[in-house]
C-alpha cells in the first residue's frame, strides 16, 4: 500500500487535489481512498488530506501517519511540519527553490517544482494543485497523463471546457518537467 | 399484552371520519342562546365568532327580504354567550335553561 499525504492551506485546493489523485489512480485500476482531515474550515489555516493506493481493496479508515509521499502545496508549512517527521519518503514541494535549500531528514528524497508559475502560465490563475498532481505522476510514473486528464475532467466538470483544457495543460507541463525517480515507488 | 386483540389501528390513526361528532357537547350548558329571526339582519357575525361552529346556514322560507337564515345547533352549543355579546342588533338572548 502506498500512502500519500497532502499539506497546504485552506483554499489552496488540498482536498480537491486528494480527490484528483485518488481518481487518477483509480482510473489506472488501483483501489484508492482519499479523505480530508478538516480542522476549522477557514481560508489560510493549515489543511491536510490523505490518499491511500493499493492493488487490493483498502479496509483502513484511520488517518495516515507514515506516508510514503508528501505533497506540500505551501512552502511555509515545510518547517513547521517536518520537525515532527520521522519517516522517510518522497517529498514534493511547490517552490521556486532547489531541493538542497531544504534541511530535511536525510532519508527524504526532496523534489521541488514551481507549480504556482506553471499554473499561472497555463491557466492565468494560481490553481497550483493541478500541476502538483502532474508532478506526482511524472515523478512516480504511477499514472499516465490520460488518467490524470480524466480525473481533472470529472473533478471540474461544472467549470466548463476552457478551464478544464487549461488545467490539463498545466498538469502536462508539470508532468513533462519532472523526471522519474530512480527505484521509484511501488504499490 | 397483545396489541392486535384490542383492534387498534396502526399508528393510532382514526379511520372513521368525523367521529368527534358523536360526542355531543351541548349537555353542560346553563344559558341557552335564543335567536330572534325577526330582529336578525343576517350579518353572520355570530356564525363567524361561534367557537363551536354551532350556527348553521339554512335557506330562508318565511322572510322574503332574506335568502338565508341562521339556526343554532344545540347539540354542541356550550352556552358561552359570545354570539349574544357580538350581535350588533341584540337579536340573541341568553336564557336560563331549566333541566
Amino acid at each position, binding site marked *: 500500500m502506498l500512502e500519500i499525504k497532502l499539506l497546504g492551506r485552506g483554499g489552496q485546493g488540498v482536498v480537491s487535489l486528494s480527490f484528483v489523485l485518488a481518481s487518477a489512480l*483509480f482510473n489506472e485500476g488501483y483501489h484508492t481512498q482519499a*479523505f480530508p482531515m478538516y480542522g476549522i474550515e477557514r481560508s489560510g489555516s493549515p489543511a491536510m488530506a490523505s490518499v491511500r493506493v493499493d492493488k487490493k481493496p483498502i479496509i483502513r479508515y484511520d*488517518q495516515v501517519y507514515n506516508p510514503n509521499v508528501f505533497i506540500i502545496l505551501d512552502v511555509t508549512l515545510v518547517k513547521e511540519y517536518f520537525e515532527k517527521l520521522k519517516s522517510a519518503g518522497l517529498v514534493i514541494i511547490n517552490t521556486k527553490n532547489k531541493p538542497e535549500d531544504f534541511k530535511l531528514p536525510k532519508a527524504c528524497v526532496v523534489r521541488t517544482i514551481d507549480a504556482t508559475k506553471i499554473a499561472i502560465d497555463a491557466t492565468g490563475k494560481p490553481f497550483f494543485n493541478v500541476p502538483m498532481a502532474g508532478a506526482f505522476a511524472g515523478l512516480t510514473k504511477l499514472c499516465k497523463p490520460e488518467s490524470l486528464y480524466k480525473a481533472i475532467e470529472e473533478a471540474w466538470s461544472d467549470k466548463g471546457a476552457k478551464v478544464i483544457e487549461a488545467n490539463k495543460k498545466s498538469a502536462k507541463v508539470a508532468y513533462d518537467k519532472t523526471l522519474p525517480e530512480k527505484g521509484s515507488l511501488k504499490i | 399484552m397483545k396489541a392486535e386483540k384490542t383492534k387498534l389501528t396502526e*399508528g393510532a390513526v382514526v379511520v372513521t371520519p368525523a367521529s368527534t361528532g358523536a360526542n355531543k357537547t351541548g349537555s353542560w350548558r346553563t344559558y341557552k342562546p335564543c335567536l330572534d329571526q325577526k330582529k336578525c339582519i343576517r350579518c353572520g357575525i355570530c356564525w363567524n365568532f361561534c367557537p363551536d361552529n354551532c350556527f348553521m346556514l339554512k335557506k330562508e322560507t318565511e322572510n322574503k327580504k332574506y335568502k338565508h337564515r341562521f339556526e343554532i345547533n344545540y347539540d354542541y352549543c356550550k352556552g358561552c354567550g359570545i354570539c349574544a355579546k357580538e350581535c350588533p342588533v341584540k337579536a340573541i338572548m341568553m336564557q336560563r335553561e331549566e333541566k
Partner: protein
Amino acid sequence: MKRIAEASAVMAEAVKLCEPQVIPLYPITPQTHIMEELANHVNNGELKAKIIRTESEHSMMSTLIGSLLAGSRSFTATSSQGLALAHEVLPIISGLRLPAVIGVAARALAAPLNIWGDHSDVMDARDTGWIQLHCRNTQAVFDTTIQAFAIAEKARLPVMVIMDGYTLSHMFEPADILSKTEVSGYLPKFKIRYQLDTNKPMTFGPVGFTDTYMEFKHQLKDAHEEAAKIISEENKRYGKMFRREYGDGMVEIFNPSAKQVIICQGTTAETAKLTGACVIHVRCFRPFPFSQIEKACRGKDVVVVDRAYSYGAGAPLHMEVKAVVPQARSAVMGLGGRDIRLEDLQMILKSKEKELWVDNYGK
C-alpha cells in the same frame, strides 16, 4: 458500474435512484454534502423531487411527517445538534408508523463544540423507535440506503442510515453504483397504509389516553421484532439480486474462528479486520441482534468498541452486549473525531481492563 466518489455523494446517488418525491432539508456539518448533491440532482433534472428549505431541523423532520402522510416517498439527512433538535419529532414519526428514511452523518454533541465524528447523536436517538443501520464503507452506504427504503416501507417503521461523520461521510473511494432499472427492479412502489385523502378523511396523531397508549407502544415493540426479520429478508433479497450481502442483515461476522472478538460499529469494523481478531459489526443497533451476538461470542474474549458514552452508566453498545455476553470488556474510543488507529485496536485486544478510555493523541 464502479465509480469513485465521496460517500455523501454516493448516498445522494442511492437516494436519487429510489426517487423520493419530497426532500425537506436543513444544512449541518458533516451531513451537508448529501443535501448539496441531492439539490444538484434536482437542479439537473435527474431527480423529480420537491426540495423544501425549512428553518430548522425540527421543522425539517415535521415536514417529513406531512409528506409521508400525503403518500410520497421522502428523505432527509442530518447530524449531531440537528438530530438532537429534531429529537422531539423522532418518536412521533415512529409512533405514526411512517416509513421515513434519513441519512445521519454521525457526529459528536456539544459542549465543547465539536464537528467531528462519533456516535453520540445516534445513541441519543436509540430509544425513539427508529431502526438504526450502520455502514462500514462507501459501498455499504449505497446498498444500505436502498435497502432502507424497502425495509422502512415493509416494516412501516422509520430508518436511520448511519455513517461515521468525516471518517466515512467525507471519504472518497470506489463504489459499485447500480442502474436505475436495477434499483426499480428491487424497490417496490411506495405505499403507505393510511394516507391523507380529502375523499376519505382520517385523524392522524390523536390523543392516546391511559387506556390505549400502552397498547400502541406494544404495537411498536412487536413491529421492531418483525422488523428484525424484514431486515434479514431484504438483505438476502438484495444479495441475491446484486451479489452483495451484509452478514445476516443484522450483524456481520468476519473471521469467526479467531479466539478474540472485537464488537464495533461503522468504519472501525473495517480497520479492526486487520488485527486478525474476529470482528462483529453490529450493522443494526435497533432492533438489537442479541441472539446472534450471544452465539458468536460464546466462550471468547470479547471487547466492545464504543464511540459514545452514557454518562453515569457505561458505553451504550457495551451495555447491550453485556446483557448476553457477561465477560465483554469495554473500550471507549474515537469520541469527537479522535482517530481509531490499528495500533489502538491491537492494544485493546491485549489489555485486560474492564473499561478503557483509549487516549492515543499524539502517540
